[in-house]
């Protein structure tokens, strides 16, 4: 095979150090100084950061560029001098992915939070990566539109951070995930070159679909600075039909729903039941169709619920929003959260099996399974935890850093890792997966967050090599420790 020339990382800079030459070891202060002289004082400071890789808070050069050019400048310098960089949005997804190696620079996108362009009649919006998803949602709602992505995240989470981790929610059933809604990106690659992908129109097949490469890449190939989404009209009518009952009845209703022409926009099966009414499972069903159709759907669901002996409750409008808000809080509060993929038709059965297997191992896991599309979450609430609590991700990074793990894990880290590995294998055998979204550091040290990559591993490595040859971006965080 001919030797490949790295193309992206090496462009647009002149002060390239000699290849294989002596690697200068840079102190944090020196790095900050160098960055300061390039970007100005306002954009750089040295802080103690607990999430930049090390087990204990360590000093990092914290840069907060004012513009995309400055982001490019940071990456140009970092690439040239092999500084390791962690791009960061609101820092809500730091517990996701493998434990990173310590980094020298944190590149915050907090100041790149503008709405770049929004044309409601085109159903297309472009925002900077640092804009919180909640802010964008509010802006779109004013024009009666939405970005139909509803990941269970802290409201501060930025679109850039979420796109980089590709965190989706229950609406994925009807609208798909980030890869389905994102149509264009601006990305700064190591070396400082600014790459545009896609086009700001809903259909585009010019060249490779590079947008997809960067989504879900955990900031290991480049730093997203601008994202363009296609949008949907805000559903005119919001109603959530919540059904409680035993597994068999929930599975039967799910099957009848799947065979029917109904169009649920969210179809989430929860166990144990969400509101402690006694049933083992809860099934929450949303409909985003026009009013007349949505009402008919609800009617039919209620009819079926009574056929199968399920308790039913319908939440309308703000009450429906509140229900999903509470659902999100419960997910986020758990100190361990794993994203699951599984055959949707077998969702309830898979869930039952997981619950039982976990119980045998002495763990009381909670599940929220998208039984329409086959994605969901497994959570392990801390003992004694009830209802909403502080989002776990922040806690996970700081408090859980000890070798033995947090107190609630009571030294059973290895056991839990073993269980997760077994569950992962079971899901993989059915075409699914298990990926840790939030976990104590001790656990992340024991088990790979992502699991095996499979036969594409060589390609994955070479992609990384092409875009970030010196592995300066988020080292160690992604699959296989990339």
């Amino acid at each position: 095979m001919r030797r490949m020339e790295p193309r992206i990382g090496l462009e647009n800079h002149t002060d390239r150090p000699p290849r294989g030459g002596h690697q200068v070891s840079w102190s944090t202060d020196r790095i900050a100084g160098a960055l300061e002289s390039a970007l100005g004082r306002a954009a750089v400071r040295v802080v103690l950061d607990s999430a930049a890789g090390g087990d204990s808070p360590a000093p990092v050069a914290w840069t907060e560029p004012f513009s995309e050019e400055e982001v490019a400048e940071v990456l140009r310098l970092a690439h040239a001098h092999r500084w390791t960089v962690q791009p960061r949005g609101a820092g809500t997804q730091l517990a996701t992915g493998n434990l990173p190696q310590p980094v020298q620079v944190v590149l915050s996108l907090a100041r790149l939070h503008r709405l770049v362009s929004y044309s409601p009649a085109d159903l297309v919006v472009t925002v900077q990566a640092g804009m919180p998803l909640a802010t964008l949602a509010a802006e779109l709602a004013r024009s009666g539109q939405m970005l139909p992505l509803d990941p269970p995240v802290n409201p501060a989470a930025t679109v850039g951070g979420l796109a980089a981790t590709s965190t989706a929610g229950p609406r994925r059933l009807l609208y798909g995930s980030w890869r389905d809604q994102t149509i264009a990106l601006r990305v700064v690659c190591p070396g400082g070159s600014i790459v545009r992908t896609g086009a700001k129109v809903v259909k585009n097949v010019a060249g490779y679909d590079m947008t997809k490469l960067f989504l879900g890449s955990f900031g290991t190939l480049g730093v997203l600075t601008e994202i363009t989404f296609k949008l949907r009209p805000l559903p005119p009518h919001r109603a959530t039909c919540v059904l409680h009952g035993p597994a068999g009845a929930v599975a039967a209703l799910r099957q009848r729903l799947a065979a029917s022409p109904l169009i649920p926009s969210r179809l989430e099966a929860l166990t144990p039941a969400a509101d402690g009414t006694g049933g083992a499972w809860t099934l929450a069903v949303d409909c985003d169709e026009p009013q007349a159709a949505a009402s008919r759907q609800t009617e039919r669901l209620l009819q079926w619920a009574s056929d199968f002996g399920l308790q039913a409750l319908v939440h309308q409008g703000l009450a429906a929003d509140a229900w999903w808000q509470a659902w999100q809080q419960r997910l986020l509060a758990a100190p361990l959260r794993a994203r699951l993929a599984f055959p949707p038709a077998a969702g309830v059965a898979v869930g039952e099996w997981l619950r039982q297997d976990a119980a045998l191992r002495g763990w009381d896991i909670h599940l929220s399974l998208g039984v329409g599309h086959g994605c969901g979450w497994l959570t392990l609430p801390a003992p004694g935890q009830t209802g909403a609590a502080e989002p776990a991700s922040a806690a996970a990074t700081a408090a859980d850093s000890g070798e033995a793990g947090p107190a609630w894990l009571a030294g059973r880290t290895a056991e839990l890792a073993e269980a997760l590995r077994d569950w992962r294998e079971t899901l993989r055998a059915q075409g699914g997966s298990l990926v840790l979204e939030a976990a104590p550091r001790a656990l992340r040290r024991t088990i790979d967050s992502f699991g095996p990559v499979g036969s594409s591993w060589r390609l994955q490595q070479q992609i990384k090599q092409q875009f970030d040859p010196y592995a300066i971006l988020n080292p160690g965080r992604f699959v296989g420790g990339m």
Partner: protein
Amino acid sequence: MSGTAQVLDARLLQALLQTLGPRRVLHQPAHLHAYACDGYVAQQGLPRAVVFPETTEEVAAVVSLLNQYDVPFLPRGAGTGLSGGATPLHGEVVISLARMNKLLAVDLENLRAVVQPGLVNLWLTKRVAHAGCYYAPDPSSQSVCTLGGNLAENAGGSHCLKYGVTTNHVLAAKVVLPNGEVVDLGATYGDAVGYDLLGLLVGSEGTLGIATEITVRLLKKPEAVQTALALFDRVADASDTVSAILRAGIVPAAIEMMDQLAMQAVDKSHYHVGYPPDAEAVLLIEVDGLAGGVEEQMRRVVELCRQHAARSVQVAQCEEERALWWSSRKMAFGATGRISPDYIVQDGVIPRTRLTEVLQYIADLSRNSGLRIANVFHAGDGNLHPLICYDARIPGQAELAAAVGSQILRACVDAGGSITGEHGVGVEKRAEMTYQFCDADLAAQEAVRLVFNPRNLCNPGKLFPTPGRCSEVRQSAWLAAQFAAVSAGFPEQTRILAPDRQGRQDGVY
């Protein structure tokens, strides 16, 4: 045709014959001509050979052999692509996947199907229709085009406004890489672990590898469908209606538009609807979903059409009527053969709100160049398909048509859009890639190609801009300017759009 066939190494031929048997290797020059091009005929070349593997292992074996002998190759489905993606310009060995047309597995419970790449798009839908399911992406050529070709081109269709394009429906694939290695990309459920390499493969126009098993998502057929046909006296009114519908919070399954010349062409074909000759535009609008909601939405759609000066709005009363309207739309490209000996179909995309002005620009270009341009397009997506009519027998017209096409794409990019929405770059729009992407953008794409296809044996010379072609386009742009100067005093556009009974316009031919 570009010269004679490149010679196939005798030992390679022996090895191919040994791998596939004599009936699945075409190598005599006489049998290669039919593979000189796909649906895009402007450039042609002879392959060294055509092979018909039937399994992943055979594809891998063939690809490994070709690597061993340093021979370029390209995959081909039904050869209906419109940008020359399957055209062997460098004596490639054509790997025809047409015989790999099995439906390998269907899981109706989980709405998944696993297919071989040569399976025809519509067949998949036919095979799962009994269970009320279908495969959503529906390019106009769906009755013949293959799912492998759809994957390579990231094919769209009329219903992608609501349901998305191929990439939104392909979940996993077994892929023979350009070095013969076999890898699995994507995941049947949820997200694949690692970089989204499947996302790169879909739409890579056969330059990153050959998918040999494809897992796709199936959808349930909607409970209700309603289709409306709205005629407009002015193109601008039709464009405004499109924006108004979307702005009103309605996402129809499809909004298609045809202009006067396109209507005339299809009315000459087997799919005669009987469009009034003086209507300037027709919109075909389809809404689907749950029964009650569909009626509600269709009422709004009809209302909005009326508000925007539609001359008439009809809602299809039976399946036959709906089918005829759709056939008339889907056959429009081919039907252009009835009004012009040759045509180029372009595939630019623009923001939907800029339809009116870009269509006006195209009309001006048509007047200035003297070439008739029919417009058939996915209005809801802003995906234009200007059909530039010309006669290759008139010296200079082919170049002029190419130049006009290029100018239209430029205008699309200038309006904030793309040079191609679903047909791909292929050989046709390589030069125009530089309209949309700068060097850094292209370098990133090149980096991806280097990873998958480092020896550039797999469909070389496609998708990426080449300097040679740029100068060609510049030359034809110059030609177009000359022509525009000459034809400045050309008769009114309305006359251009109203050909005589033979479908020819006085003075044009």
